[in-house]
């Protein structure tokens, strides 16, 4: 088999597919051109140059992933208009009596929980402004709170199927359910989050103080005023709750994740439009669809085709053989290698192309490592590495850049070096914890 794979390496299709992959990834990393544009052109090249025909290209696209992403983006996009996120953030600050160190912990928890079930970027987009207000009232620097929210967002998003796009990719491709993610990842994520909050406390929390009158101002905030649409609030809570329950019972319901998410999005939009006259419905629905990150979705479309091309051409099978040779076919060493390499790479480049490429590569290892069951720890390694790795540097994850962008616009400087000097060691520590967990749980 290895000989067959090596023989493929000189075929024109192999060379073409590999060249398209390298060029696509290089341009994505360079950030000179929008990544969706690059991915679509790469996909076009895969078809036009004969690596795949159109039918094969369409089969390479994981519509379950696209549907899940689109559905959840729509649900969150509508739910955010209710003011729910800001309400929870202020209540959390008041529940710890406006103690700055307590708020540091409370907002970490709020961010992590929201990120586990909703999109990270939207979570921080809605929590960061309220964080600014709270810190302004307390007269404490906002930077520590923003950094801890970044960490918590990436950590929390690792815990569930829907918390982070890499998990959606992995879950869909490896047929891992929502429950499988919760059972296998939530425990270690809870440990990592706890350790992270302890570290945050000793780095920043113990030095944060606020005068009693400032704390009184925070206690005097009226969180209920953040709720701008009560009907939408209740609809959001019901729909998000129903969608999560449906994910939990997806196997019994014989439903795929995309069906659940898109149906939930449809019902959410219906409920949002109900109180309004018919002529306003189109405007509301159009607004809801504007909340979908079409750039991300088309980026995925193009990426699936490009990766499908190299898989069809045999590159991933060849890389799989090399990986088995390098690790001696040992599942544990393979898992740790995937964990650490995906963490380091995710810290510096976009993790989605990496995960999209690793998925078929890992699948190709099945026969060498003992079948699909032997691959399970590798999936968790990939998920932990790719998601937690985003905490390593300022460019490691979209939510990092989102927070930094808002901060800069509001006069708070986010230096790549200053952030990374704190973030990289903490990310590596979290990966070490993840490795210990994998060793204990699977090996």
């Amino acid at each position, binding site marked *: 088999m290895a000989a067959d794979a090596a023989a493929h390496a000189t075929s024109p299709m192999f060379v073409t597919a590999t060249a398209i992959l390298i060029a696509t990834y290089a341009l994505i990393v360079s950030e000179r051109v929008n990544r969706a544009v690059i991915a679509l052109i790469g996909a076009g090249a895969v078809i036009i140059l004969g690596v795949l025909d159109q039918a094969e290209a369409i089969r390479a696209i994981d519509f379950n992933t696209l549907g899940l992403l689109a559905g959840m983006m729509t649900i969150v996009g509508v739910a955010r208009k209710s003011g729910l996120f800001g309400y929870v953030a202020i209540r959390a600050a008041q529940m710890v009596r406006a103690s700055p160190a307590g708020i540091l912990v409370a907002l970490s928890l709020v961010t992590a929980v929201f990120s586990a079930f909703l999109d990270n970027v939207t979570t921080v987009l809605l929590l960061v*402004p309220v964080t600014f207000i709270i810190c302004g009232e307390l007269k404490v620097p906002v930077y520590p709170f923003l950094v801890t929210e970044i960490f918590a967002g990436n950590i929390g998003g690792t815990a569930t199927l829907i918390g982070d796009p890499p998990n959606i990719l992995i879950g869909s491709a490896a047929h891992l359910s929502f429950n499988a993610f919760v059972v296998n990842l939530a425990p270690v994520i809870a440990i990592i989050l706890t350790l992270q909050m302890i570290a945050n406390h000793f780095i920043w929390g113990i030095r944060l103080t606020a005068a009693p009158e400032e704390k009184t*101002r925070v206690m*005097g905030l009226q969180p209920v005023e953040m709720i701008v649409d009560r009907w939408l609030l209740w609809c959001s809570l019901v729909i998000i709750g129903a969608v999560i329950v449906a994910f939990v019972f997806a196997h019994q319901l014989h439903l795929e994740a995309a069906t659940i998410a898109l149906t939930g999005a449809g019902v959410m939009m219906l409920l949002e439009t109900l109180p309004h006259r018919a002529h306003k419905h189109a405007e509301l629905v159009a607004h809801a669809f504007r909340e979908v990150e079409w750039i991300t979705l088309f980026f995925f479309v193009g990426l699936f085709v490009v990766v499908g091309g190299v898989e069809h051409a045999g590159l991933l099978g060849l890389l799989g053989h090399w990986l088995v040779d390098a690790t001696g076919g040992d599942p544990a060493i393979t898992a740790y290698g995937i964990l650490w390499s995906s963490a380091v790479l995710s810290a510096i480049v976009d993790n989605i192309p990496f995960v999209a490429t690793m998925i078929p590569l890992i699948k190709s290892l099945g026969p060498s490592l003992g079948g699909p069951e032997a691959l399970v720890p590798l999936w968790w390694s990939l998920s932990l590495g790719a998601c937690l790795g985003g905490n390593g540097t300022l460019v490691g994850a979209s939510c990092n850049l989102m927070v930094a962008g808002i901060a800069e*616009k*509001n*006069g708070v400087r986010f230096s790549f070096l200053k952030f990374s000097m704190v973030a990289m060691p903490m990310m590596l520590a979290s990966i070490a914890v993840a490795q210990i967990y994998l060793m204990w749980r699977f090996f």
Partner: protein
Amino acid sequence: MTCAAIMTADPLTLKEGDSVAKAAEALTKHHYINLPVVDGEGRFLGMFGIYDLLGLLVPRVALAGDLLPNLRFVGDDPAALRAKFQSVKTKTVGEYCDRQAVVLYPDTPEIEAVRLFCLRHTTLAVAERETSKLVGIISYWDTIRAVTAGAP
């Protein structure tokens, strides 16, 4: 008709080193929406007006897009706004003036001024094309007076 024909020449201006307190006094005394800010050589730098002044009293994050739906949750504390003004009144208008403000030229047609009033609801500065020296301002009152002059 061009802007030169309807503008108010040699208008009241703010220097970039003037304090926010001085700007506030000038705006409220003369009921101006905004005033042009110039440098030491009289070159137009930007506009500073009541919305820029009020913007100094509100957390910046609350003015950026739709990140925060409202500030009703902050509650009622009149002393807080006065305290905030006290903390910013010594800062200079040069720091906070709108440097992206549209500038017209003496030969710009009046219709362009009318279009900009409809879009931006603000007084417009008129400056020399080559030197950027401020030569006048046009308010919507100037335009309405010019348009309605002679009408019954």
